[in-house]
């Protein structure tokens, strides 16, 4: 309700403000000698490492590999989890039957599942992608089902009275009613997929990817490289989130109205 005049900063610049504050805090931590400079390099050194990595193509390559795995995992998770979530959400007894299993696996660290997946799916790239798919799918499933179950009943009744079939109601009303919640699930899901892909690249072993890069830099105590890779992962996560957010703003224009 405040007028824009009282905030001289333009909206589009606000995220930059957040980043600048973060970098300043970082410099402050270094200046205050809170942490040994070998272990926590300065933002500037990290930037340099990032730039070098981009310039010589290695960081970019690792970045793209991680992007590829994450997106693949998220897409598979979406394809599996959204329809299933709608079915579970609109059939509460089924959800009740599976709730335990879903919550159970949702609460099981994906990294604890690595051995099982390794065993079942082998040591290739598929395994990393599938573990991430598994994790992301559970989160998406949970949110979609939740959104469907908590959808306000009025519009479903309206569609029902118009003679819409169960399937129609599901896809043309329930799905849309639960869209805001679904998007929460998607945003959480893509974040989780990224996390698992990176962790898998770190701990299962991989020839490339940001997780591999973090692992290597860590082994060699090349802290600027390590933070550069971590920040690349963070930035990637942000971009993926943004993607879903933009999609949401376009698709769920009515939310909160």
């Amino acid at each position, binding site marked *: 309700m405040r007028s824009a005049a009282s905030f001289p900063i333009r909206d589009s610049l606000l995220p930059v403000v957040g980043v600048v504050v973060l970098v300043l805090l970082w410099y402050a931590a270094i200046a205050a000698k809170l942490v040994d400079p070998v*272990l926590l390099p300065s933002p500037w050194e990290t930037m340099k490492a990032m730039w070098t990595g981009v310039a010589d193509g290695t960081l970019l390559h690792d970045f793209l590999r991680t992007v590829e795995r994450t997106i693949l995992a998220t897409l598979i998770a979406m394809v599996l989890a959204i329809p299933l979530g709608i079915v579970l959400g609109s059939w509460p007894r089924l959800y009740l039957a599976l709730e335990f299993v879903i919550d159970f696996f949702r609460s099981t660290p994906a990294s604890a599942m690595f*051995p099982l997946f*390794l065993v079942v799916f082998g040591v290739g790239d598929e395994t990393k992608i599938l573990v991430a798919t598994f994790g992301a799918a559970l989160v998406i499933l949970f949110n979609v089902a939740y959104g469907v179950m908590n959808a306000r009943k009025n519009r479903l009744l309206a569609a029902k009275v118009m003679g819409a079939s169960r399937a129609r109601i599901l896809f043309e009303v329930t799905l849309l009613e639960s869209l805001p919640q679904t998007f929460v699930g998607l945003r959480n899901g893509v974040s989780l997929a990224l996390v698992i892909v990176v962790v898998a690249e770190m*701990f299962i*072993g991989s020839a490339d990817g940001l997780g591999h890069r973090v692992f290597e830099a860590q082994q060699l105590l090349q802290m600027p490289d390590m933070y550069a890779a971590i920040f690349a992962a963070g930035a990637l996560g942000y971009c993926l989130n943004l993607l879903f957010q933009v999609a949401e703003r376009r698709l769920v224009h009515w939310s909160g109205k």
Partner: protein
Amino acid sequence: QDKVKVGVFPVATSLPYFVALDRGYFKEQKIEVETVRLIGGPPTAAALIADQIDAASVLVTLEGMNTNIKKPGAAVYISLNSQSETYPMEQFVVRKGFQAKSIKDLKGAKILSAPGPGNVLMAKAALEANGLKEGDYRLEQLDTAQHLGALKAGTFDAGYTLEPTATMMRQQGIADTLETGVIARTVLGDPKADAFVGGGVISTRFMTERPEVAKRYAAAWLKAVADIRKDPESARRHLLKNTLVPESAINDIPMPGFFAVSQLDDKSIGQFQRFIDFSMKLINAPETVDVRKYLKTY
């Protein structure tokens, strides 16, 4: 061209694989290897059990023999890596500024250990052999990647760590080595004795289903082992491309002693058996194994 899938842990102990690969010994034998990068023992052991790889560049013998208890013949050694004072690998280090001349001085220290029950229990056994009881020190396991940072930050005073971390610590002036050949001294009573802590493996299934290919694989492998024994200086340069070892450290990186199984005499095998028996007791294994069953001479 026969295909062989090899689980590779990119560290110095996998050197024969890199030498054989880079010098074309596999090609000579008409073998096309597929490198599957695997971090550490458990994924390697699992992949061997599940028949997803035919061989592994390195597998710690404790883990290998433990695997053989669960599934006999999953891991058969064709070469062994010795660790001792001569071939330093595992060692106690102290951070700069902490007063200690020997392990005995670590009373009251905060000590980190390489992760896994094998390492932790071995560290404890070594400390006990030096008269330090549980409670005289604090020991916590930590991923080796964190060792440098943890000692540098002063969170720990000393550590039971592995190469190449220890070398990097020395180079960067973070810590000094206190004692090497820990296992040989603790288990075999002689720091210069050969403690066969790891080795190159193939699976029994590979050996029986494709005996001819396995033989050629072993031939390439052992040719590389022989190369390393003959000229370690040129061999170790293969680590540059294949592992994380930086150029600056390449000449200082300690390496284990590589032995073809055929080179082992009865005394060595007896020592190997002692080491395995000792380790199995440490980890409370229900049984021990006859190591001869899982050594294959080519």
